[in-house]
């Protein structure tokens, strides 16, 4: 579904943020990308979304090279980024350009229902809590019915309860129509709970350090011994990746 071929990104100041990334994501797969801060995981997601162009290599969505943002690739940012002057429903339909007004509204309400916000369709962003605002942002990404959903640390600013709630919501959405998802996170728990496969990155320059298929059956339980074992080994690996980066 998604393919990255020897993708490198050098910023204008000369800093090499990503070096030779090869990655393939299967249709309907949830890929988790974990790494310490500054390892380029957010940059990687921006490259996949088409917001930023790679310095070398290429990104493909199916057979189409990604050179600019595409409607079939949705992106959820770390912050909700709702337009404060629009209602929640108007925010949800923000990316639906050419459709008739009634159809836009209908699809926006549908997406809001899926994230449990239909009661707040006519509220303003300032009236929402952080978790609800982020759900609205997810609804905005879902409205365009993307086949790929990119999530950039989407729950990192939320409290633990709300985070768990939204992770479950995300899995519900995924089991309904199985979009391909790429989730960038620094939260090992989150990566293990959601992902079919986890990529561990290292920094300076950003590169793939290791890759694991998470064979835990779903639904997963954070307290199960298997989950904990995965967590311990992944944490050790993340630590090793960060040590490599420091040594380099």
């Amino acid at each position, binding site marked *: 579904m998604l393919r990255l071929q020897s993708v490198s990104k050098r910023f204008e100041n000369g800093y090499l943020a990503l070096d030779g990334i090869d990655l393939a994501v299967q249709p309907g797969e949830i890929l988790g990308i974990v790494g310490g801060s500054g390892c380029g995981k957010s940059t990687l997601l921006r490259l996949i*979304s088409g*917001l930023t162009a790679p310095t070398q290599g290429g990104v493909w969505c199916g057979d189409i090279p990604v050179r*600019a*943002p*595409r*409607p079939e690739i949705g*992106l959820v*940012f770390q*912050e909700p*980024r709702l*337009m*404060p*002057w*629009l209602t929640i429903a108007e925010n949800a339909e*923000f*990316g639906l*350009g050419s459709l008739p007004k009634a159809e836009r509204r209908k699809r926006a309400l549908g997406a809001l229902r899926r994230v*449990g916000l239909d009661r*707040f369709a006519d*509220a*303003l*962003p*300032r*009236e*929402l*809590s*952080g*978790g*609800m605002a982020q759900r609205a942002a997810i609804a905005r990404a879902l409205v*365009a019915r993307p086949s790929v959903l990119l999530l950039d640390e989407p729950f990192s600013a939320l409290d633990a*309860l*709300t985070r*768990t*709630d939204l992770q*479950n919501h995300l899995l519900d959405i995924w089991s309904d129509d199985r979009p391909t998802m790429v989730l960038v996170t620094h939260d090992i728990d989150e990566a293990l709970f959601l992902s079919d496969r986890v990529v561990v990155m290292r920094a300076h320059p950003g590169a793939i350090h290791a890759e694991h298929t998470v064979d835990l059956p779903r*639904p997963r*339980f954070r307290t199960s011994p298997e989950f904990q074992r995965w967590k311990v080994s992944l944490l050790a690996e993340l630590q090793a990746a960060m040590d490599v980066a420091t040594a380099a």
Partner: protein
Amino acid sequence: MLAAERALASVVSDAGAQQGSAAGSWPKPRLGGLLGWIVPVAVAAIWESAAALGLISGRLLPPPTVIATTIWSLAASGELTLHMRATIERLALGFAFGVAAATVLGALTGYSTVGRRLLDPTVQALRNIPSIAWVPLFILWFGIFEMSKVTLIAVGAFFPVYLGLSSAIRDVDRKLVEVGRIYNFSPAAMIGRILLPAALPAYVVGLRSGLGLAWMFVVAAEMMGASEGLGFLLVDGQMTGRPAIIIASIVLFAALGKITDTALVRAGARVLSWQDSFKPQG
């Protein structure tokens, strides 16, 4: 266990949202609107009694009652309507032209880097010319009638609106702009759906400054040569040695300026009701 977690989380988040909306509907103090009258009324009372006691010369500084009578007789003779209409028409036309030009240019230089590098230095240089300096040229070009006056007012209103809008657009949160980029917005959609609404609060402030300058320049324009208008009334009062007429015009300027500014603030508050402000305007 998961179901319980989710139920709890949604209760928590809903409670947070209700708190947020409840904070917006606190009862407002009733007498707040009257507070603003205290100072002008007190000044008028002191002024009136000082004149009555002979502490100030009523001939050079007529007391408020004389000013009020002067305004009343102007109104009765129909002169007041004539002068006010002339002034307001000039102001409205000049302000409209100035704001229209400032909005187009401000949006252009705010949005496009090339546009800004091309035009902004020139605009900034022009801004540093005291606008009154244009008067002789405008009179030569457009004659002494309406055209030169309206142009001067438009020039006065232009700069604060231009400056406010252009810099506000450049200051719009990059994160919101990226949302537009994700949806492949055209430049027009980017300006219309993200940049202008986000810049609106600063734009309203610019409009208020622009309106204030428009009032300033309408007086300047009318003092330089007009046969009607409140500015003409000022000069007329000076020529004929009637301070009551001068002060009456000044009071009318204050009242009209305040009314138009309040109207602008109200209109602004309506379109900016989405703001999560510390204290609402007005």
